[in-house]
């Protein structure tokens, strides 16, 4: 623990010695510990299968950690009962690689789904949203540049538009933190940039903490305040983008990965 600073400002999220075993001898997460300040933009990088997705899902318990401790706003996440867990999840948004929308419903309906956690079961079942909720949904949709698509079914949208709906659904939760699981892995470079810019802007404006799993190292360097490098379930790098040297990078990805920083995806690094 650093002194002074931590006493004045408790971390938003703290993971202590998180272990996760699926069926098998090798752990998916191996003694992962780190803490996150409110409003931080953290990028998690690492090879496929390193445990990035598992790590993200352990935080909101979409995957149950095998052991360890997670504190979110001072609450012991792993000790929560079902009802309390649901309440906690309303404060944590989530964005997915494949958007995870209900394709047959319209944009606005999908966005309002973000409110379901904060409603009674009956209101949720009936899909009754208040005037404020609807107003806010329209506002967010407008901010994300989807005004023309409000009443369009989501299966008519492009990948970039779908991901913006995903962001809107997370934002309408009024989250303190958003977990993003490979948000741009299925998108072209232009849409990727739009999505990352939106994430960055909203996180800064609304003071939302972001934890983003990324494949693209250059994107992580450009957008994040801090990078976590994961290899075989262990955190092998934790620091600002400036410290991510070629040698550190090969710690994460293995020796063949030297060219990753100056890779062909220079579109982001201007």
């Amino acid at each position: 623990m650093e002194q002074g600073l931590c006493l004045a400002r408790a971390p938003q999220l703290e993971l202590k010695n998180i272990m996760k075993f699926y069926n098998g001898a090798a752990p998916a997460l191996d003694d992962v510990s780190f803490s996150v300040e409110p409003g931080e933009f953290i990028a998690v990088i690492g090879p496929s299968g390193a445990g990035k997705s598992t790590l993200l899902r352990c935080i909101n318990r979409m995957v149950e950690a095998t052991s360890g401790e997670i504190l979110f706003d001072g609450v012991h996440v792993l000790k929560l009962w079902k009802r309390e867990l649901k309440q906690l999840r309303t404060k944590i948004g989530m964005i997915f690689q494949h958007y995870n929308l209900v394709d047959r419903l319209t944009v606005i309906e999908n966005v309002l789904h973000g409110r379901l956690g904060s409603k009674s079961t009956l209101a949720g079942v009936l899909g009754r949203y208040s005037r404020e909720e609807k107003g806010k949904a329209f506002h967010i949709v407008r901010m994300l540049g989807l005004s023309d698509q409000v009443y369009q079914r989501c299966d008519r949208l492009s990948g970039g538009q779908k991901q913006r709906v995903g962001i809107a659904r997370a934002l309408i939760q009024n989250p303190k933190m958003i977990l993003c699981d490979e948000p741009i892995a299925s998108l072209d470079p232009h849409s990727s940039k739009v999505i990352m810019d939106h994430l960055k802007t909203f996180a800064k404006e609304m003071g939302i903490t972001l934890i983003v799993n990324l494949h693209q190292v250059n994107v992580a360097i450009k957008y994040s305040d801090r990078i976590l490098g994961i290899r075989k379930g262990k955190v092998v790098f934790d620091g600002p983008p400036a410290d991510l040297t070629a040698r550190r990078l090969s710690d994460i990805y293995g020796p063949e990965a030297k060219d990753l920083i100056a890779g062909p995806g220079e579109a982001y690094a201007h």
Partner: protein
Amino acid sequence: MHTDIFVKRRNGNLFFFAVLAALTAGSAVITHFDVLKGFTSVFKAFVWGLSNFYPDARSLKILPDILQKLWETVLMSVAATSVAAVFSLLLALAGSQTTRVNGLFTVVARGIASLFRNIPLVAWAMILMLAFSQSPLTGFLALFFGSLGFLTRAFIETIDEASSSAVEALQAAGAGALPVIVQAVLPSSLPQMISWLLFMIDTNIRDATLVGLLTGSGIGFSFDLYYKSMNFHAASLVVLLIVITIIGIETLSNSVRRIIL
């Protein structure tokens, strides 16, 4: 090393066909099935059918009677399938990985589905006949149980396939089980489910003929009656009408499917 794979695959195929041929020949020998005679009698059957099995003017007089029975059969199939669909939906929600509440429900629901699916319709009809004797209720229940097993299985697959990703998103947002079902699972999977339902109605109208024959109700019974009284012209009219009805219903349900999917 690479060629080995191809050799292996070719040998595997050869082996498979050898086994198939051996099984075919073996079962023909054991059952004393004369392949040649079998195929020539198909031809003979056709000749007999063309010369005897066609509706004539006299049989058209019973047309209203047959249509009445046919209508009953169609309605019975629709009713049995729809009622089964309601129960199947509940079982599927309990049995699907996506919406499962707990492991016990899942096992029970899947158990019921596979039990009911694996008992043939004819067996259902026979079993139920012991309890309800020859009556339309027996036919209804036989179709109901058969559909229940099949639809539950189909609905489970549909739910897991169509809605698991959206369900994950809503659970991550803290939504409860019921809102997730109504807001994400149903909108994603209903069209596919309705498509299965229509398919099942098709199938059941066909099977209702057989079940009716066994349980003495509906169009199957009419057919049985005419056939056994050697009134082949009337029997052929029944078959013809069944075929027309099934094609009609199939066309209808195909176009409905195209619209909703």
